[in-house]
């Protein structure tokens, strides 16, 4: 036991004395968060909007004027039908359309409620969602203005629809996505490189020839990265909350525990990679290229999975980050509890056990 502790302490020395490792470890998440945070900004201005007014009554005009007055929109008024609107969307300069039905004002005053339709371009889900929020706010504002009394409210129901990306996947998704990506890179790459380094240096040969249990080598290698990655998760969450004003809606503890589970998955994967490679470059390449690309593509973090061909959707199931992404999104953004993510947790646990089992079993007590 003492041997293991001394070994783990040695691993910490390695990490803390290697500036590059530290930089990757803690620089990467900060850069990623800031980069994604400000590149995928939710602030929108001067959005081209088509207002198709089929009612042409005082109420629809008043709402149109309110929209015109706001700095967010540039209004094109027209009486286009649905097909023409879609054509305008395809051209790409129009991101949004607001459609008043005929008898808009009549319905509002006689039936007490009416509807408007908001159509947005879902290929840029961040903008689409923001636009819907702005329009809903403007309409809500107008609704209050014309209400004669709080008890007798007139209701305007906005019906929003996204073209091209019905799920509206994307907004705020990047925090869970970055978490998955960073943990994947840090844990998998750094662990695999750490083990392979011993092979390259020739110290692995000595460790094998020692009475030290070979399996402990793997455990000792993984422990520092487990602890540091846990700190990393906290760092990312702090950045998200205080720098990017993301609200963590669910239990922070649950989020943290799920992250630890995912870290373990990544560590197992890293150890597995280190078993089958002999040089730091190969280990780096496999874990960077082999892991990062699938993580980027198949988690649904950059590209919505729903829009992918069936084959890719099936492939995405074997990517651990995909499950972690679903869990974090549910806990962090939707505020759901464990009861909603137990299935994903189970899948991740299964993957971890399988990967770790293979890694430990494949660990060679001899060279070649």
């Amino acid at each position, binding site marked *: 036991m003492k041997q293991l502790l001394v*070994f783990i302490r040695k691993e910490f*020395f390695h990490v803390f*004395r290697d500036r590059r490792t530290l930089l990757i470890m803690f620089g990467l998440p900060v850069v990623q968060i800031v980069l994604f945070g400000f590149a995928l900004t939710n602030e929108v201005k001067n959005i081209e909007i088509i207002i198709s007014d089929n009612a042409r009554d005082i109420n629809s005009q008043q709402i149109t004027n309110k929209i015109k007055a706001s700095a967010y929109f540039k209004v094109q008024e027209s009486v286009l039908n649905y097909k023409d609107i879609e054509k305008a969307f395809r051209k790409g300069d129009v991101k949004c359309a607001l459609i008043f039905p005929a008898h808009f004002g009549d319905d509002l005053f006689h039936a007490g409620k009416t509807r408007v339709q908001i159509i947005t371009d879902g290929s840029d889900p961040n903008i689409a969602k923001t636009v819907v929020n702005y329009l809903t706010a403007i309409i809500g504002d107008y609704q209050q203005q014309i209400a004669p009394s709080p008890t007798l409210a007139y209701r305007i129901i906005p019906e929003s629809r996204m073209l091209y990306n019905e799920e509206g996947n994307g907004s705020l998704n990047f925090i869970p996505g970055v978490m998955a990506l960073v943990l994947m890179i840090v844990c998998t790459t750094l662990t695999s490189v750490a083990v392979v380094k011993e092979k390259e*240096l*020739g*110290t692995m*040969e000595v460790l094998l020839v*020692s009475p030290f249990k070979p399996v402990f080598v793997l455990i000792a290698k993984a422990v520092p990265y487990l602890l540091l990655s846990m700190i990393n998760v906290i760092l990312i969450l702090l950045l998200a909350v205080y720098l990017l004003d993301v609200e963590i809606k669910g239990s922070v503890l649950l989020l943290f525990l799920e992250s630890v589970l995912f870290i373990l998955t990544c560590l197992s994967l890293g150890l597995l990679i280190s078993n089958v490679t002999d040089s730091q470059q190969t280990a780096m390449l496999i874990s960077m290229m082999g892991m990062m690309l699938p993580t980027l593509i198949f988690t649904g973090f950059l590209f919505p999975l729903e829009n992918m061909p069936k084959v890719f959707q099936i492939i995405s199931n074997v990517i651990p980050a995909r499950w972690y992404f679903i869990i974090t999104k549910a806990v962090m953004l939707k505020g759901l509890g464990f009861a909603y993510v137990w299935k994903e947790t189970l899948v991740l646990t299964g993957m971890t056990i399988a990967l770790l089992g293979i890694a430990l079993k494949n660990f060679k007590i*001899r*060279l070649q």
Partner: protein
Amino acid sequence: MNAVTLQNISKSYQDVKAVRDVSFEVKKGELFGLIGADGAGKTSIFRILTTVLLADEGVATVAGFDVVKDYKAIRDRIGYMPGKFSLYQDLTIRENLEFFATIFGTTIDDNYELIKDIYDQIKPFSDRRAGKLSGGMKQKLALCCALIHKPEVLLLDEPTTGVDVVSRKEFWAMLKSLKEKGITILVSTPYMDEANLCERIALIQNGRIMGVDTPENIIRAFPAKLYAAKSDNIYKLLNDFRAAQAVDSCYAFGEFLHVTTKGNREAGSSELRDLAIERGHTHVVIQEITPGIEDSFIRLMNEKSEASAHQ
């Protein structure tokens, strides 16, 4: 009792036969040298003995244990310094030593006596990181790390490669004193001059053992008179001698040529001189010399290759 035995050990990597039918024994308490050029198969033999590589054929034991069945027992009892062993560059001398002591289930204090002589030399730098040490100091530290658990058998794979002459001398002096403490040492080296410092040596070439004996006996077994020859045009002399009927072997050795004659003639010296002058050489020097290990090695090597060519 033998500390190390190898019987008909063979090992191939894909098409390359690294070790071919190797057998030899190292007696308990002996300082035994495995001498051969790079790529001769020395490291493979070491890895088989240290249980990290499995031989294709043959049986080997270390400290009385079988390298395949009882590999765990062997791992407790040997000290090993691999050829490319370079320690943890980012740990200090002391941290390296402490780490290896703990891994082998001991402490520096327990076996300090054993490493004292060596460790004292690097102790002033004990807070320096291993990556910043000179080659000689690194080897001393590596030796300390291999010795820290008081092994029965010490296996050193090319410990002096890439180390300066003074450090090499010191290193061999250390091995001598360790031997006196009763530790069996198997050491490999590509340097022929180090062979004389071993009690017994095995010459290895292309994975085959060409001879096992004391350095003196190997030199004594040199079957012919050896001459050193020199003239103003040494390259022409080499070609002339090689073309001559009377000459058995001729190769460059430092500033001289080493020459043996066919049938080991009594008057070899004067015959060679006449031959050289006849071919127009000036300032001819021919003298009889005692052969060294390298001469024996080259001779054994040529004999082997001729033998395999005739097969």
